[in-house]
């Protein structure tokens, strides 16, 4: 019985946090947004060197072969550092799909290059958790047509695309008949966009026929988004406390007023159990198959609610400065907002949780 982080996991978090800080932290995220970089090459290369790109890629294919708990810790660090890098799609969902559903040839073609940080695969499956604007992709005779919106890790060399029947396909970014259109969201740290397919030749992942792998990807993606929110919210809480100890009004630090202390205590009280909850949900992906979907739904929805509360409350503790671009707190605020809507809003994910327990007639 051991429910906590191992020494290696603590080291992983430490080295990743240090790397992101040395790379410039918030300033790096600002520069990424201002320069419209598309891909932050320095960060992507640095992460590949630490082993993040191949974190869940099996060792046989050149990766590190680590657990979903490790993957969630990385997501947490990236959220904490508002890191403008592809991760949940490119380093978790895409390699996972290849591992679970790819042919041997597909695995050997893609996984080692993913692990080396040489290729980045965007993930188009938003329609599987709720289609907007009538979007959706159909596959006929090996060719895709239709649209997919809000592609995760949009700046990519290839895409993993879910069709309406739940099958997964690989498409090169420069494939004939594929057009790409960026969609600007409030969160400038994670570019997203739309893919339009007009008879685009695609490579089916043969193991994805029954839709089970897609459902697994959604579970995993939700836990990763929750972990990202955990990191971002923890940072916002820490910033609120630090600010309250230096900002003085009425002749004393505002952090000595109970009104402010209680706002911070409420953030801590709702956020702290989220840490164990994210661990548990990630561990369930690794080792508790019967609980994995239910905990993934609940952790996604719960972190969305707690994250939103912390994002708002931390901003309020900062007063007017929290509202400015000067302090930059809004980078975390928007990151949390992004995680809340992607792969299902809290309401729709909770409905799935109810369905997973046969509570929906």
């Amino acid at each position: 019985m051991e429910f906590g982080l191992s020494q290696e996991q603590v080291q992983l978090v430490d080295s990743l946090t240090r790397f992101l800080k040395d790379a410039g932290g918030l300033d790096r995220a600002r520069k990424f947004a201002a320069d419209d970089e598309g891909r932050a090459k320095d960060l992507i290369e640095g992460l590949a060197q630490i082993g993040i790109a191949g974190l869940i890629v099996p060792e046989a294919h050149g990766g590190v072969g680590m657990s979903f708990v490790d993957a969630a810790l990385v997501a947490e660090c990236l959220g904490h550092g508002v890191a403008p890098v592809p991760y949940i799609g490119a380093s978790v969902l895409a390699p996972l799909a290849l591992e679970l559903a790819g042919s041997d040839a597909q695995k050997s073609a893609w996984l080692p290059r993913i692990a080396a940080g040489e290729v980045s695969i965007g993930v188009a499956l938003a329609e599987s958790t709720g289609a907007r604007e009538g979007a959706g992709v159909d596959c006929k005779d090996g060719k895709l047509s239709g649209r997919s919106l809000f592609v995760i890790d949009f700046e990519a060399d290839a895409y993993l695309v879910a069709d309406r029947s739940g099958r997964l396909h690989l498409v090169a970014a420069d494939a004939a008949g594929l057009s790409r259109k960026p969609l600007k969201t409030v969160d400038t740290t994670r570019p997203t966009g739309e893919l339009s397919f007009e008879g685009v030749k695609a490579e089916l992942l043969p193991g994805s026929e029954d839709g089970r792998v897609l459902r697994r990807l959604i579970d995993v993606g939700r836990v990763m988004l929750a972990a990202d929110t955990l990191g971002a919210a923890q940072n916002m809480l820490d910033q609120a406390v630090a600010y309250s100890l230096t900002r003085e009004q009425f002749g004393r630090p505002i952090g000595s007023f109970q009104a402010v202390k209680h706002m911070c205590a409420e953030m801590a009280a709702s956020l702290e159990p989220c840490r164990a909850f994210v661990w548990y949900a990630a561990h369930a992906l690794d080792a508790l198959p019967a609980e994995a979907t239910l905990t993934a739904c609940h952790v996604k929805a719960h972190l969305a609610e707690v994250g939103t509360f912390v994002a708002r409350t931390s901003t309020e503790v900062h007063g007017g400065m929290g509202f400015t671009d000067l302090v930059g707190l809004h980078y975390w605020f928007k990151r949390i907002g992004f995680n809340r809507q992607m792969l299902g809003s809290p309401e729709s994910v909770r409905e799935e949780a109810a369905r997973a327990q046969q509570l929906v007639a």
Partner: protein
Amino acid sequence: MDLSYSKEHESFRREVAEFLRSHAKEAPKGGAQRSPEALKWQRLLIEKGYAARTIPKEYGGFGAEPDILKSRIIAEEFAKAQVSSGLGGQGISMLVPTLLEMGSEAQKREFIAPTLRGELVWCQGYSEPGAGSDLANLRTSAVLDGDEWVVNGQKIWTSTAHLADWIFCLVRTEPDAPKHQGISFLLFSMKTPGIEVRPLIDMTMNRNFNEVFFTDVWVPKQQIVGARGEGWKVANSILRHERGSLADPNIMSSRLNALIEVLKRETVDGRRVIDNPVFRDRLMQIQGRVMAMQANDLRLLSAQVNQQNPGIAAMIVKLQGTELRHELEQLAIDAMGELGLLYGDTPYLRDQGSWQHQYMFFLGLIIGGGTSQIQKNIISERGLGMPREPKVAKA
């Protein structure tokens, strides 16, 4: 991460389950703490090591080495079987651990064994009308006269005072010392002349509390735990104990399951409440929060096993656990609508009125044992390192 138990613990779990299968019939079914069945059951549990497990044998316990996982397994198996896990109350849960830590050898020998067996029932004399959140402001005085303390004053919120044989009581013995250093911890019989107990009916309409008045109550000098003026230290070690024990995850999850059944069972215009998406969403929100607290509890358990300091994760349990239970109970009432209002002996009553009762009772627990606001002070000051509110200068 590894949530499995060792072979030794798995076999211990089977042993507990086997005991419950063969002995569950002998367990008392609720009711009075002092019924002959309850006392007999308690003796059996101590003998088998399922109650008073780590209390040394010479003081009437089972004398096992502390093993947090075994204690957890016992709690889980008894909860699963819905069998009484023995006597509780403030004597067993609070006074016994205190005496083990701070009591004299004579006090340990005199009080612990009969308390464990349920023969000696205690009440706790801490809060006063002017000393609630600011407990150290208490004014009940004890003055040494020869070989005896003379106690005068008043206590309030005293659970089971009308049933108790003895009281453990905080009194001011050093009126000139700073307020935290002037308090002592006394033990005395509730039959001592000069004690008057008056019932205090709470909003559940039960006598969960009393007021206790002391007028020249004479207490032998040696019935003090710790030294003169050390009472605050003694009391604080058990207050921590009380806060941790208020949010049992086993009870939380059985209550959640009962709530799900209420939503499936109750109908409006012939339609099940659970088929209303608004109620279903509220239920799922509560379930998500319960799961977060269960994961937090696993983290605390693991930290305890590994002797790590869990930090904020432990400080938030009382605040989050009581607030969550209160809201969970409220959802059942809302699901029942007008039927949820029924209380007492009346037609259409559901589940013996337990949802209303628990809903109100948990509001009491949100306030008692350190209010939610005091909890937030503790979390912000000890957990987040924020400063105390400066004292207001007296006008």
